[in-house]
């Protein structure tokens, strides 16, 4: 196994980091202290996702055998138990490292339960998608109550579902102008929500969703022959904004994926105007090399600005 202890101690001796810090880092390199915090939490996340997935299968398969009321009640109780546990834990001075995963499980169970109840008992009738809005509000409120970015993420995803935005690549090839417009509208609503938000820890989650929803909508337009020019322009504008934001906030992820969205939009637009395989392939070779060089330039600039 690898140990960087000599280098860490050297950095400590040179005074670049404090002696205590250097000692702690050297102990980590000697593996006297090994934190498995990320592994434990990832295991918990996988557990939650498997449980939620299993519940999803139950509600879709076992209707007649168990009965809708029993299923809805059981999931509801399990969800409430998770929320109840988290409310109780919230008062505790020492939060448990896995509390937020219990909360996430509760929220996912609630989502499944509400969707199931709506489908089974037809509570909202033709307005059935409104249950997504209910979920968005409930998850949003609980996100603020518990200070959970994961719940906020679920809330925005539910809001996007209410707007009718699907989360798969087929969207680009099958969806209509209205889907793109709904993506822009959803991005706008999330932007308004972000403006009203007073919790700094949530800002990045909002920003990621706004950027992705807007550029996703633009890409949908780019894939439609009638709107591809305006679509590409929209993607480029939002990508430029996201890149500028990434530079300002020193968030490299924005720069990277905004750049990828922009490249995709330009490639789709250009290829649709080119004729003949030789021309298209020549263009692809040249443009991809240019895209790689451009990303290098952006990255170098990003590094300089962060230094």
């Amino acid at each position, binding site marked *: 196994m690898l140990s960087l202890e000599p*280098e860490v101690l050297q950095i400590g001796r040179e005074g670049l980091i404090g002696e205590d810090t250097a000692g702690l880092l050297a102990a980590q390199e000697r593996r006297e202290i090994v934190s498995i915090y990320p592994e434990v939490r990832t*295991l918990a996340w996988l*557990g939650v996702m498997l449980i939620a997935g299993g519940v999803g299968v139950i509600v879709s398969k076992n209707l007649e055998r168990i009965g809708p009321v029993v299923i809805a009640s059981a999931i509801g109780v399990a969800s409430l138990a998770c929320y109840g546990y988290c409310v109780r834990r919230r008062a505790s001075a020492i939060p448990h490292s896995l509390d937020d995963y219990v909360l996430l499980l509760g929220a996912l169970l609630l989502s499944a339960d509400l969707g199931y109840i709506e489908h089974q008992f037809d509570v909202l009738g033709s307005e059935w998608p409104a249950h997504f809005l209910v979920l968005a509000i409930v998850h949003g409120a609980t996100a603020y109550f518990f200070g959970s970015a994961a719940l906020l993420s679920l809330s925005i995803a539910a809001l996007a579902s209410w707007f009718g935005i699907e989360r798969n690549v087929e969207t680009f090839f099958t969806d209509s102008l209205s889907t793109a417009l709904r993506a822009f509208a959803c991005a706008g609503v999330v932007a308004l929500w972000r403006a009203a938000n007073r919790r700094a820890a949530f800002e990045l989650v909002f920003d990621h969703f706004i950027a992705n929803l807007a550029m996703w909508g633009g890409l949908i337009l780019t894939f439609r022959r009638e709107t591809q020019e305006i679509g590409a322009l929209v993607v480029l504008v939002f990508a430029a904004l996201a890149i500028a934001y990434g530079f300002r906030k020193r968030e490299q992820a924005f720069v990277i994926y905004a750049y990828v969205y922009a490249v995709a939009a330009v490639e789709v637009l250009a290829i649709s105007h080119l004729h003949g395989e030789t021309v298209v392939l020549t263009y692809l070779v040249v443009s*991809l090399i240019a895209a790689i060089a451009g990303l290098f330039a952006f990255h170098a600039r990003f590094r300089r600005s962060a230094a």
Partner: protein
Amino acid sequence: MTAGEERAIELASRAGGWNITPEQKRAVRARLDVAWLWNGPLLAAVFFVLTALAVAALFFLCEELHLPKGWITAILCVAIAELLIRRFHFGGTGVESALWLGGLFAWIFALPSEGKPEGLLLLAAACAIAGARVRNPLIGAGGPILVIAYLAAREWWIAALIAGIAIAAASLFARARGWERPSTDNLFAALLVICPIAGAVASIGETSLLWAFAYVALAIVELAFAIRLRDRISLVAAAVSSAIALIVLRDLFRFALEWRLIAAGTLMFAISVAVARALRGRTRGFVVTPVKNAYEEALRVFGSAAFAPKNSSAQSSQPVGGGGNFGGAGATGTF
């Protein structure tokens, strides 16, 4: 790239997660500044994909022009990769890896093919050569994985399974010694985790359930190793081997898929809670001291959104309208 330079790059990337001030981080990085261009995993992956697409476009362009596509693509790619490495000091950007691997793959794909599985061995050799040249552990691990795929393609299921376990076991013991180069250490880490998965995927459903005990034995050895040497990767490998053993034995659990999922999820969650409780308050050895991990955070915040309720039928009349489907908690139901 020398071992010292590799270590400096590794240290600079680790410094991002250290609990020190931004000024200290900048000072450390400036001190460790090496003359090589390298990127973090996300950016390297983007560069790798963009370069691989360019290589593929070049390959098909040569085909379109009736030129010797394999030779031209291979020579151009390897030459450019070498130029970038030697002249411009590319060392972990993702570009040189894609050029080396893409060039060799292009040459192999252009060979007259009879569809024989031995082609997989050529691809494995290409991975080994490219991985060794650019010192990329994931590309290097591709070699043994393709060998396992070859064994499966020949329908030597047990050999594929044993190869996966044997490579993992060998990697485990290789990790016991101190390696100077991070890339060597990472190669064994990748082999340790990935090879049993490759062996299991290649042989599952084709071998006796008793082979599950081989994975159990591997998991026990990995766990013992992890505890003795306090190695996180071996701990992950032990979890993976245990999961494979359970999957191999899945037919023994005579209950429906949904209950298996819930049981597995509950077990995983219970283990994480038990481990967190057992280690709470500890300051030496394995601890659960919070460590900022961007990937775990991204998984929790954005990965969970993938399991959020989906609207899979609302094509035209949203926000309201449509009907028939509902979703959430990782499933979309249709009745």
